[in-house]
């Protein structure tokens, strides 16, 4: 491990817990569309927290970022191009 930097693992966990509560509360009290938006935003943040801190992506070289971003991009392209056939069809 370069430099022995460490995130505070426990603090991250606390944040994760808080965010779970946020999304649960949102799903209970907010109107549907707003809630969905918030919930997925929160899920994204949770994923980022885990990947950056627990998976130490923060400390990795750009190549490893590519290992994450490129497949996500392709999966996204696939999903988007599926929309016309399954979502917008008559």
């Amino acid at each position: 491990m370069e430099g022995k930097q460490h995130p505070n693992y426990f603090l991250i966990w606390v944040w994760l817990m808080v965010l779970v509560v946020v999304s649960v509360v949102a799903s209970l009290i907010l109107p549907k569309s707003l809630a969905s938006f918030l919930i997925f935003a929160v899920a994204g943040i949770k994923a980022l927290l885990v990947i950056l801190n627990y998976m130490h992506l923060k400390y990795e070289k750009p190549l490893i970022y590519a290992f994450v971003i490129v497949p996500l991009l392709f999966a996204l392209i696939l999903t988007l191009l599926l929309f016309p056939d399954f979502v917008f069809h008559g």
Partner: protein
Amino acid sequence: MSNILGDVTQGTHPEKKGFWRTYVFSTDHKVIAKQYLALSLFWAVLGGFTAYLIRWQLAHPETAAPGAGWIPEPFMYEGVVPPEFYNVLITMHGTIMVFFVAMPLLLAVFGNYLIPLMIGARDMAFPRLNMLSVWVFALASLVLLISLFVPGGAASAGWTGYPPLSARAIYTGVNWGMNLWIVAIALEFAAFLMGGINFLTTTLNMRAPGMTLFRLPLIVWMQITAGVVFMLSVGPLIAGAVMLLLDRVIGTTFYVPEGGGQPLLWQHLFWFFGHPEVYVILLPALGIILEILPVFSRKPIFGYRPIIYSTIVAGILSFIVWAHHQYVSGIDPRLAMPFSITTILISVPFALIVFAMIATLWKGSISFPTPMLFALGTLGVFLIGGLTGIFVGSAPVDIYFHDTYFVVAHFHYTLFSAVFFGGFAGLYFWFPKMFGRMMNETLGKIHFVLTFILFNTTFFPMFFLGVGGMMRRIANPMQYEFLQPLQPINVFITGSANLLLISQGIFAINFFWSLFRGRIAGPNPWQANTLEWSTSSPPPHENFHKIPTVYRGPYEYSSPETAEDWLPQNQLGLEEVKK
């Protein structure tokens, strides 16, 4: 098992091992490549046999195929192919040829054998994972073989396995055969995922000193691009295959419209993988000819870097063309046009590679031993395949050509050129390295001439069939009045195909004869530059006595730096000596 991810640095092996550890459970990439070679040649024979039965049935429907009388009843009736077995035959033919011949031969054999040698490494980054890969592939082979013999028959929904036909046993009568087919393919994917991870990590991390990325031989670039493309495209299909298997086994309704499922979804997932897959097969073959052309024209590759960039561009583009297989399948018509545009644009990077190959010949000093002949054959045949891809790539034209023999001709021109012309080129070229002996030149030349001519007489007429409207995957063209006038072509094709099959016997003879009787090759029979030629033939365990240091790119032929017309990558040149 637990040590799969151990580095090679921890996995030094003692020199002496028993028979089992040396030839069967070996972690040596060279042995693994040969194991893959044996498996893929086994499957090539079986794939060729299915082609024979297919062709016989098409030319002489409902008559007994000579030499097939021994196949027992539920499959065939005294040599006659019933329609349900015809569907099994094409399914197995496609599956075998693409997944069990093309992939192992082009990726696993050449990738495994060449990558460590060419980058100057002692082995793969994960030798045990590599061994696991070949054994998972062997397991996949076994499962596919078993699937042929289970009650209900083998998979018969085409190699593309479109649901709902493939999703419910009632539509085909096939039950476990189809399930095992899915399992076999999933295992095959697992094997090649392991291979891909290994190729990429090895190339990233294990290069000899001085071997920068832009000094890698092009075939290594092609192999890792193919590996990356494979790894990124196969995921959705793995998910899709899980869904298909669940549909069949526990009754989910992903693809079954009665339960709200979407048959079209499978097509998207399949082709999202399927199209990149054809480049996974093509790229290593192009890599092979890119290695061979400079050696026998004694000239550097023209445009080394542009070729690399084109390869990467083609790899990326290949992810956004997949729906060209679905123009008429009921996708949103507005979607078809963008896909048609990207499809046709992909000809640009491939055109660059083709032009670069041609420019490499310019002002060369060209000789024509067998590997060169097959390399040129690959180029010539692939050109026809690629150009006819433009026809089917144009959406309106594909309305007519889709699912006709025009497509069958197109993909045999591309696949056969990659797999067999490219594969043979590679085998003739690296056989001396792999087995220490030369293959016979005369037999090789005869083999080439026969294969080249007979291939064209077999598959070129299929374009006419397609233009004439003959559908693919029909067991008996004589059932259609409008196809009956085309039947003489079918008879002609079958005749050629049979001769083509027989002429492969020359290769088999040459292969086995040379294995034991061929002329001793010496380390560098072709006077080539890349690192694999700097060690003995066959290379020792762990490849090099001393890891070579690399001073230059792989294609310095006829360089003004030396009087010779070749300058190996690891040889000190004038500049280095001065220093």
